[in-house]
C-alpha cells in the first residue's frame, strides 16, 4: 500500500487534468442517462397523442443531451489519458532518480533485463491505475447519486432497486472477484519479467551459447517461459472476462427487476404508466457504466504488484551515513591516505581487504601489484566511494571522504576501470562524456594519443562497445579519461588487452600528462615499474610489501620472486 501511495503522489502532480476528467466524466454519464430516459419518455408521450410542440421540445432536449454527452465523453477521455501518460513519464524519471544513487551495487541484486522489464512494463501497467482504478469509481458514484435522486422523484422503490444494484455491481461483485484474484495470484508480471530476463541473457551470451551448443537448450527454456507467460496472460484475461460478464449479467438483472417492479406498480396504480419506459431506460443506461468495475479488482491488483515491484528495486537504503557533505575543489593534485581499511563484499564471509594502510602523496606515482583477487581493485572502489569500508578511514588531503560529496571525488579523478561502459551512439558521444565544450580537434588528438587515429569521431559504437575489440575499448576509455584531465588518476589494469608496443606508447602519454598528478596504477604485469615512486604488493587482501622498484628487488621478497617468475617466463627459450 505504501508503494501505491507513492504512485498517487506522482499522479497528483497533474491535478488540473484529474479534475477535468472527473467533471467531464460525470457530465457524460448524466447526459447519457438523460438522453435515453427522455427518449423513453418521448415515445410514451407520443403514444398518447400529445400536442406537437411538447414533442418538439422533447426531441430538442434529446438532441442537445446527445451532443453534450458525446463532447464530454471526448473531454473525459482526452484529459484522463493525458494525465495518465504524463504521470507515467514522471514516474519513469522519478524511478531513475531513485535508482541512480544505488548503482553500481544494485547490479549485484538485479539482472539488468529484469530491471528493464520492471521499469518499462510495470510502469506501463500503472497506466491502468488512473484510468481504471483511481477516477472511474468517483465518476460512477457521482453519476449514480444524481440518477438515484432523480429516479426517486418518480418512484422510491425503483430508486431503492437502483441503489441496491449499484452496491452489488460496483462493490460486492468486484470485491468477491478481488478475493478470487488473490487466490489465483496473478503472476503475469512475474512471468513477464522472467521471460524478459532470460531473453536479455540469451542475447548477451549468444556467442558462448552457440559454441557450447546450448542455443537449442536455452531456446527451449525461453519457449517454456514464453508459454508460461502467455498461459498466465490467458488465465488472467479469462478471469477478467468472466467477472465482466458476470457484472453485465447482474446489471441486466437489475434492469429486469426494475421492469418487473415498475410494471407491478403500474398495474396497482402506484406509478403512472407513462414513466415505465423512462425508468427502464434509466436503469439500462446507468448500469452500462458499471461493467468496467468488474475489472477494477484485477487492475488494482496489477497496479499494486507493479508498484510493489518498482518499490522493491529502489527500497534499499542508501549506504551513506547522514553526514553533511561538502563540495571540494582541488586545484593541485591532492594526497590520499588509507588507514587500517577493512572491507568485505555484502554477503561474503571473506574480507576482500584487510587492515590496509597506504599513503599516496600529492603528485606521487604508485603501482599496486598482486595476483587477481588480492584486493587491488577493491581498494580503489573504496576510494571512489562505490563501497564504504567496514572499518578504517580514507582521507583526501587529510579530510575523511565521508565528509566529501561523491561528485567532488569523481570530478577530480580520471578513472579507467577493468570493464568500461560505452553507450550506443558515436565515438564522439562517448568521448563527450568527459567534459563539456570539447572541440573535435581535441577529441581527435586524444584518439591519436591512444593510437585510435584510424577512428573517425562519427564512427558508430554499438551497445556495450560490442563492435570494438578489447584493446580498442581500453584505449577509448583511456582517451576519455585523458580528456577529462583531472588531478587524480585511478587506472585499473588499463592496458591488459593491448599489445606491448601500444601499451608502452600509451603509458608514455599518460605519464606525460599526469606529471604533477597523483596516480595509482593497478597492474598484474611487473614490467616498466622501475620509475614508479612506490610499488605496493598485495596478496589476499593484505599489503605485504612496499617500496621503490630497486628497494623491493634488493629486499628479495615477494615482489622479487614474482619478478623472477616473470623473467623466466619471458626469457625462456628467447635466445636473446
Amino acid at each position: 500500500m505504501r508503494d501505491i501511495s507513492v504512485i498517487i503522489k506522482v499522479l497528483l502532480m497533474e491535478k488540473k487534468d484529474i479534475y477535468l476528467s472527473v467533471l467531464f466524466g460525470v457530465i457524460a454519464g448524466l447526459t447519457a442517462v438523460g438522453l435515453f430516459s427522455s427518449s423513453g419518455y418521448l415515445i410514451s408521450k407520443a403514444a398518447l397523442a400529445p400536442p406537437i410542440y411538447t414533442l418538439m421540445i422533447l426531441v430538442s432536449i434529446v438532441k442537445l443531451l446527445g451532443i453534450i454527452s458525446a463532447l464530454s465523453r471526448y473531454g473525459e477521455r482526452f484529459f484522463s489519458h493525458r494525465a495518465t501518460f504524463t504521470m507515467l513519464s514522471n514516474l519513469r524519471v522519478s524511478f531513475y532518480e531513485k535508482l541512480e544513487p544505488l548503482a553500481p551495487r544494485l547490479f549485484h541484486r538485479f539482472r539488468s533485463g529484469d530491471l528493464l522489464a520492471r521499469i518499462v512494463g510495470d510502469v506501463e501497467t500503472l497506466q491502468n491505475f488512473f484510468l481504471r482504478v483511481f477516477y472511474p469509481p468517483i465518476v460512477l458514484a457521482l453519476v449514480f447519486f444524481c440518477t438515484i435522486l432523480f429516479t426517486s422523484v418518480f418512484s422510491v422503490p425503483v430508486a431503492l432497486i437502483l441503489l441496491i444494484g449499484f452496491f452489488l455491481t460496483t462493490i460486492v461483485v468486484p470485491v468477491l472477484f478481488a478475493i478470487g484474484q488473490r487466490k489465483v495470484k496473478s503472476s503475469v508480471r512475474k512471468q513477464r519479467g522472467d521471460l524478459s530476463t532470460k531473453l536479455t541473457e540469451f542475447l548477451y551470451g549468444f556467442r558462448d551459447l552457440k559454441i557450447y551448443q546450448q542455443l537449442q537448450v536455452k531456446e527451449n527454456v525461453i519457449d517454456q517461459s514464453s508459454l508460461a507467460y502467455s498461459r498466465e496472460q490467458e488465465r488472467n484475461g479469462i478471469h477478467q472476462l468472466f467477472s465482466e460478464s458476470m457484472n453485465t449479467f447482474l446489471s441486466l438483472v437489475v434492469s429486469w427487476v426494475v421492469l418487473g417492479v415498475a410494471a407491478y406498480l403500474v398495474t396497482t396504480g402506484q406509478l403512472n404508466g407513462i414513466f415505465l419506459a423512462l425508468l427502464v431506460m434509466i436503469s439500462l443506461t446507468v448500469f452500462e457504466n458499471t461493467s468496467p468495475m468488474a475489472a477494477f479488482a484485477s487492475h488494482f491488483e496489477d497496479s499494486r504488484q507493479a508498484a510493489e515491484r518498482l518499490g522493491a528495486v529502489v527500497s534499499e537504503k542508501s549506504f551513506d551515513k547522514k553526514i553533511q557533505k561538502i563540495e571540494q575543489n582541488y586545484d593541485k593534485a591532492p594526497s590520499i591516505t588509507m588507514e587500517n581499511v577493512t572491507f568485505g563484499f555484502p554477503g561474503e564471509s571473506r574480507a576482500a581487504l584487510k587492515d590496509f594502510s597506504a599513503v599516496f602523496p600529492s603528485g606521487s606515482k604508485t603501482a599496486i601489484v598482486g595476483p587477481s583477487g588480492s584486493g587491488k581493485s577493491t581498494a580503489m572502489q573504496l576510494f571512489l566511494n562505490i563501497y564504504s569500508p567496514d572499518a578504517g578511514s580514507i582521507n583526501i588531503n587529510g579530510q575523511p571522504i565521508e565528509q566529501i560529496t561523491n561528485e567532488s571525488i569523481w570530478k577530480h579523478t580520471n578513472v579507467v576501470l577493468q570493464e568500461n561502459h560505452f553507450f550506443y551512439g558515436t565515438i564522439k558521444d562517448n568521448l563527450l562524456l568527459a567534459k563539456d565544450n570539447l572541440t573535435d580537434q581535441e577529441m581527435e588528438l586524444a584518439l591519436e594519443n591512444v593510437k585510435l587515429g584510424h577512428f573517425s569521431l562519427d564512427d558508430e559504437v554499438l551497445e556495450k562497445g560490442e563492435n570494438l575489440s578489447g584493446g580498442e575499448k581500453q584505449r577509448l576509455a583511456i582517451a576519455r579519461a585523458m580528456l577529462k584531465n583531472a588531478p587524480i588518476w585511478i587506472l585499473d589494469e588499463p592496458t591488459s588487452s593491448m599489445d606491448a608496443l601500444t601499451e608502452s606508447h600509451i603509458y608514455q602519454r599518460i605519464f606525460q600528462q599526469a606529471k604533477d598528478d597523483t596516480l595509482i596504477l593497478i597492474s598484474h604485469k611487473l614490467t616498466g615499474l622501475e620509475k614508479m615512486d612506490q610499488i605496493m604488493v598485495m596478496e589476499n587482501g593484505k599489503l605485504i610489501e612496499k617500496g621503490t622498484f630497486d628497494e623491493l628487488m634488493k629486499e628479495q621478497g615477494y615482489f622479487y620472486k614474482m619478478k623472477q617468475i616473470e623473467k623466466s617466463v619471458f626469457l625462456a627459450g628467447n635466445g636473446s
Partner: protein
Amino acid sequence: MATLKDLASKQKSKIFSLVIIAVLSGLSIILQAYLFVVIVDLIFLKQEPFSEVLSLLIGLLGVMFARTLFQYTSGRIGIKMASKVKNDVRKALLHKFSNNPILASTKGQSGQKVSVMMDAVDEIDSYFSSYIPQVIQASIIPLMILIYIFTQHWMTAVIIVITAPFIPIFMMIIGFQTKDKAEQQLDKMAAFSGKFLDTLQGLTTLKLYGRSNEKKKEIEKSSLDFRDATMEVLKIAFSNSLALEFISMLSIGLIALEVAIRLIIFQDISFFIGFLMLVLAPEFYTKLKDLGSAFHTGRSSMGAAKKIQHELAEEQQAVTWGNERLPTDQPPKISLKNAGFYYGEATFSLKQIDVEINPYEQVAIVGRTGSGKTTLLHLIAGLLPLAEGEIEVNGRPLSSYRENDWYDRLSYISQDPYLFSGTIAENIAIGTQMNATRQEIEDAARQAGISDLFESLENGYDTPIGEAGRGLSGGEKQRTAIARAFLKKPSIILFDEPTTGLDLETERILQASIKKLAKHSTIITVAHRLHTIQHADKILFMENGQVLAVGTHEELLQTVTSYRQMVEEQQGGALH
C-alpha cells in the same frame, strides 16, 4: 512470417464457432428488445394485469442470461486464439535470433530486440482477442437487426441503410492514419527501452563522469516523446469515436422523429412498433461503434505485426553447414585457402588468408590491436560466414560438416567469457554435452587453477554466479571458461588473449594446463604475451587484416622487424 490475417485463418474452427455465437447473440439481442417492448406495451397501453406478463418476464431473464453467456464465450475464444498466436510468433522470433550469425547478434541494441519480442508481440494480442470477434459480430449482428427492423417498419430500415455506411467509411479513413502513428509509437517505445537499458548498464561510468543528470534529462525527453506519440494515437481514436457518436446520434434522432411523426400525425403505426424501433436502433449502432474501437486496436496490432515481420525478414549472411560427419579419432587438419571476410560496409576486412594448421599443432596469432586477430579466430570457429575463399577441414569444406560435430570438437575461450546465471558447477558443466559428475567438474576447475577460489566460497561450487550472482573478475571468468574446456576435452581449442588479467602464478599453472590440453588438441591462440607463443609451432603475424608472416618465434625475430620490436618492448621497460 504470414500476416495476421493468415495466422487467423489458420484457426478455422475457432472462427467458425465465433460466427455461430454471433448469430446466436444477434437472436438474443432481438428477442430481448422484443420482450422488453411487449412487456411495457402490455402494462402501459393495454393495461393488462401483472400476471399476464409474468411468463414473459421469466423468458426475458433467460434471454438476458443467454446473451451474456454468448458474449463470454466469444471473448474466451478470442483470448485463446491470441494466446496461441503469440506463442507461435515468439517461437518464430526466438528461432530467428538463435540462427543469426554472431554479427547480427551484436547489431542493434539488445533492449530493442527484447522490446520487439515482449511489447510488439503483446500488442498483437488485441487483434485476436478483440478485433476478430468484434469484426465477426459487427458483420453479422447489425445485419440481423436490420433485417428484423425491415420486417417490422421498413422506413426505419431505410434510414439506417442510408446513414450506416458512413460509420465504416469513417473508421477506415481514420484507421489507416492510426496505423502509421501506431508504428511511430512502437518505434519510440523501442528507442526508449534501448536507451534505458544502455543507461542503466552504464550508470557507473555516468556517475564517474558526473553525467547521470544529463542522462536523466535524456530519459525524461525520451519518455515525454513516448507520451506524445501515445497521445497522438489516442487523439485519433477519441475523435474517431466522437465522430461515430455524432453519426449514430443523428441517425437515431431521425428514426425517433420519423416514428414520432407516424405515431402522432399519421397514426399509422402502433406504440409497440415505435418503441421497438427506438430500442433496436441503438443496439445496431452500438455494434458498429464497437467495431470502430476494435478496428482501431486492430490497426495498431497491424503496426506491431509489421515490426515483427520486419525483424523476421531481416537479411542475414548465415554460416551454412552440411551433413558429413567429422571423424573423432584425432584433431583435423585445417586449411584456410584465400579466405576473406568483410565487416558489412565498414572498411575493415580480412583478405587472402592462406594457412595450414596440422593436427596437434600450436598456433599463435600475433599482431597489433585491430589487425584482425579475433575476427580470424571467429572465422575459423565457424561463427562468421566466409566472404571469399574456403576453410577446409581434412580436405573438405568446413561447410560440408555437421554443425554439431564441429562444435563438439571445439572450445573457444573468448576475451570476456559469458557467465550464465546459475551455479559455478552449472557454468563449468555447460562446456560439455555429457552429464558431468561433480568430481569431473572439480577436476576441471583444478586444472584451470581456479579450484582454490571456488572452494573458499561458502557454498563452494553451488555459489550462484552470473548477472545476479557473485561477480567474478576478468581473470576468474577466463579461468572458468578454461575449466569448461578441460571438462569438454576438445580437439581444437581457440583462445582469445587467454592471459588477460591473470596473475603470474596462475599463469604458470595455466601454462602447464595448456600444455596438458595440447597433447590432445590443436590450439590456436590469439596472444599478446610472448611467453604463450614461444612454444608455438607456428606464429601467424597479422597486420591490417592480412597474415604478414608465418614462422616460429626465432624465425620471425630474425626476419620481421616490427615483430622484433614488439618482443623487445615486452622484455624491457614499458613505462616512460
